């Protein structure tokens, strides 16, 4: 049976995945991506802690298998859904809130949202919304409509979902995985390996990575201050990006705390990650607030980012300390 839980640092994808796997897996060990990238698409610059898809992330150490299933038409897709639900698997699907009768955006606003499709009875599909703690049934037409809507929002030429084999075997992380995750994050934060590359399945190009991303952030803030008319769209993207950065930093602090291993800088590093996560969350709120009070919140956001940048620098030193302490 579906059991909801609350976690303020998980978005609708991670909380759905964590929610499904939680009865079987130590979910704190799934999320370790903690990098920093500036990416560009259609002249818009966005910021991210990871350029890897979530299913690659969670299977790297745990070996949990998540299949990305795609279909060309909605009818083909429904056949595929029926097949997997019949095998007792849960499906992570994206829907358009505009077509979801329980959403406050129902018939008013389009928006992408991720939920778990977990049961079919007759022509009725049961949906569990782990983010908003809702159970709801969709008839097949509503399901088709909401998924077609999501395809349009994604500008994808296919309809897809992720099939989760929630009861499959999994590997808890070991010390080697633990050090590998830290080293991987450190390598990406000090290197430039991805700059100029295109993220698979997207039109996003990485334009900067590591601490130099802050320079791009400050430039974007300066451009907002120069052009007050761009407040709305920029505050919206800053809001989403800072929220995700905050989530990734916090989830990585949980990852570091999840292995029973002691070393001198463990507590300090976890606390630092929590502080960084906290400050990104403040920036997220300031981005929203800037739509009301403009430069006052933008100025505070820039100040807070300078503090975050200093802490991110310290974090890299902490990573090096940990790797030394655990060698």
């Amino acid at each position, binding site marked *: 049976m579906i059991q909801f839980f609350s976690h303020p640092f998980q978005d609708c994808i991670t909380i759905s995945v964590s929610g499904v796997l939680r009865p079987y897996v130590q979910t704190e060990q799934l999320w370790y991506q903690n990098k920093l990238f500036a990416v560009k698409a259609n002249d818009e610059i966005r910021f991210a802690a990871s350029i890897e898809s979530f299913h690659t992330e969670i299977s790297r150490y745990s070996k949990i298998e998540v299949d990305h299933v795609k279909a060309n038409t909605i009818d083909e897709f429904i056949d595929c859904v029926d097949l997997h639900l019949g095998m007792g698997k849960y499906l992570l699907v994206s829907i358009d809130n505009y077509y979801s009768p329980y959403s406050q955006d129902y018939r008013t606003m389009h928006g992408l949202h991720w939920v778990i499709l977990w049961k079919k009875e007759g022509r009725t599909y049961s949906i569990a919304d782990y983010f908003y703690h809702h159970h709801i049934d969709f008839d097949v037409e509503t399901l088709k409509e909401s998924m077609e809507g999501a395809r349009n929002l994604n500008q994808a030429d296919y309809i897809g979902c992720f099939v989760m084999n929630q009861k499959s075997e999994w590997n808890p992380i070991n010390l080697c995985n633990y050090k590998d995750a830290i080293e991987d994050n450190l390598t990406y934060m000090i290197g430039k390996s991805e700059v100029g590359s295109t993220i698979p399945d997207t039109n996003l190009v990485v334009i900067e990575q590591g601490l130099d991303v802050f320079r791009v952030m400050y430039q974007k803030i300066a451009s907002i201050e120069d052009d007050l008319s761009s407040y709305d769209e920029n505050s919206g993207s800053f809001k989403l990006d800072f929220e995700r950065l905050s989530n990734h930093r916090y989830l990585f602090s949980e990852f570091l705390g999840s292995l029973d291993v002691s070393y001198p800088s463990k507590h300090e590093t976890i606390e630092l990650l929590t502080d960084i996560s906290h400050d990104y969350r*403040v920036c997220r*709120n300031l981005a929203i607030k800037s739509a009301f009070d403009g430069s006052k919140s933008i100025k*505070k956001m820039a100040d807070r980012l300078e503090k975050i940048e200093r802490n991110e620098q310290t974090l890299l030193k902490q990573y090096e300390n940990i790797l030394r302490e655990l060698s």
Partner: protein
Amino acid sequence: MNDYHFDIQLFLNNKGIVDAAAREEGGFSLGFTSYPSELLPPEGSIFTWNDVSFRFPVRSADGFDNFVLEEQRMSVVPRNYTSIAILGASTNGNFYEELSLLYQREETYRFKLKLSNFIEQESWFGEAVALECAYGRCRTSDIDYYKPKIYCVTETLPDHLLFDEIVMGDNPFMHIFAITIRGVN
């Protein structure tokens, strides 16, 4: 020991408690959810919780009833104090900032003031819930999915601490409704 109700009237800068008739004026969270006035102690009243008394703020001429942290410097009567108790909550996240106590401009003590999100189902930092409303007041209706809370944070001070100023951090998403400082006569 006496409870000294610090007068926050001069610092009020946010509308967080609203009547149903004025629901559109509420601006506590970024989504404009506020506390329903009928479910909280009357303005200016003395509210006692867990053996500590607080004075609830009197709504200002601008309609403000709480303050968000903006590095305020607050003068207090210099005394030896033993604890400081704060009623407050955060919005749109769980936040913390340093709060400093000074004597003659020198910092004598500081601590992290941690306040959970006012609509969190359970307090994130584990602080005590002093007041909880059965519903939240949004701009179009009352929503019983939200149970807005006001938390009480009590910091025990070391060895009858002498101070004459409180300095807040800077975080417009942390709100304070009342401060009581306990001290010797």
